[in-house]
């Protein structure tokens, strides 16, 4: 049993391997659940039919997909016992994908990943404007990968799979009670504090040319303001051009 769950975990790392616009993560999902279905169905005909059923549309957050995999595994066991219908298994899988993706996108992509990026950039920027000349960069990079993966990524995948299997779809209720929104708020508040501290320390290192300090804070303020109204890439292009023209004129 444990070995088949471990196999599902390893295979779930390929969830988005053949991501497509028609059925999105369907190939990865079917590929992931095969070891578990093999344990349930010894008859190859039945197994193949079952795998084909899981080849339909599926799209969610790749880390949190493990929860849905766990739930689907539990439901498949219940189906064998005659407690649920085949339709319910597939319907639950598809219906849970949306809410779980919403949690994952907000908690991981737009908070945890961004926060870890802020941490590693801060580690380097705290050394001032010549940060890239002075440092041994390996501790920063390894620290980033370890913090991101060992605190956020891997535990979510493994624990999600086990909890999904043991609690079935009640796990969604438990996650909602746990309050991911509070975690998101905490991460974001911490992120802002770190960014302000880093900006202050970094701007001190620009003090030898006072114009640069003013320009640095002016750019932070302007990019904050503009990115509320327009896409970040346009903000970057616009401010880059403004700064470039300014320096060109100054150099001239």
């Amino acid at each position: 049993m444990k070995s088949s769950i471990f196999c599902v975990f390893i295979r779930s790392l390929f969830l988005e391997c053949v991501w497509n616009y028609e059925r999105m993560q369907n190939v990865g999902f079917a590929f992931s659940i095969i070891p578990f279905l093999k344990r349930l169905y010894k008859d190859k005909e039945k197994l193949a039919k079952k795998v084909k059923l899981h080849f339909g549309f599926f799209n969610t957050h790749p880390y949190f997909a493990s929860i849905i995999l766990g739930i689907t595994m539990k439901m498949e066991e219940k189906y064998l016992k005659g407690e649920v219908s085949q339709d319910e298994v597939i319907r639950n899988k598809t219906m849970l994908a949306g809410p779980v993706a919403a949690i994952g996108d907000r908690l991981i992509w737009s908070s945890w990943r961004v926060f870890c990026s802020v941490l590693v950039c801060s580690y380097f920027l705290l050394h001032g404007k010549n940060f890239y000349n002075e440092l041994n960069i390996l501790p920063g990079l390894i620290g980033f990968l370890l913090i991101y993966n060992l605190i956020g990524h891997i535990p979510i995948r493994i624990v999600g799979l086990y909890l999904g299997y043991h609690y079935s779809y009640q796990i969604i209720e438990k996650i909602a009670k746990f309050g991911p929104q509070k975690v998101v708020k905490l991460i974001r508040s911490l992120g802002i504090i770190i960014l302000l501290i880093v900006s202050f320390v970094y701007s001190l290192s620009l003090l030898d040319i006072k114009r640069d300090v003013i320009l640095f804070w002016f750019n932070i303020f302007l990019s904050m303001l503009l990115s509320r109204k327009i896409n970040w890439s346009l903000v970057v292009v616009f401010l880059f051009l403004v700064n470039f023209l300014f320096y060109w004129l100054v150099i001239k």
Partner: protein
Amino acid sequence: MFVSFKILVSSLLAGLIHLDILVFGQFMISRPIVVGGIFGYFLGIPQYGLLIGVLFELLYIIEIPVGIKVPVDATSSTVFSIVGFEISGCLILSLIFGFFIGFLYKYVDMLTRSLNSVVLSWVDTAKNEVVIKRINLLIFYGIIFTYLRTVLFYLISFSSLGYLLCVLCKFLPSRIIFDVHSLISILPALGIGICINHFLEK
């Protein structure tokens, strides 16, 4: 000859790193800061690798793959900037070219995602005895196809846009190329501002 070798090995290495984005794991090895470190060491310019990595990490910090959105590719931006800097010696132009390469790669990625839809019928029409085998082969196809497409993308972009970058560098006044370090030290402010605004959003 040595430059061609560097371009070839960089493309092969970048292909491997790109697998982290979608194909296997998403361990964030493909983030600009990590890619910057790896390519910096590989090309013997660790400082510039780190500098470009930090800049792109901050600039692309809020570009996230929510739902079915295909994000602008930060990895290709970083790789192209570092290799572009190594072959041209011009940091500013390498950063500009790199920034736009990310958008180009995004469209390549979208195209291949559309192509992936076509191969699904291979499993749909399969007889029951070969379904599992074909799904396993599809995963294998995903890995190989993504790797080869990325390597090809880099080989083409290094040899065409890299060449253009070198030519443009010759025409730019040397002061613009070498005396803009003040500008580089200001650039993290853009990413910091965008990120603070992102964290402030509800």
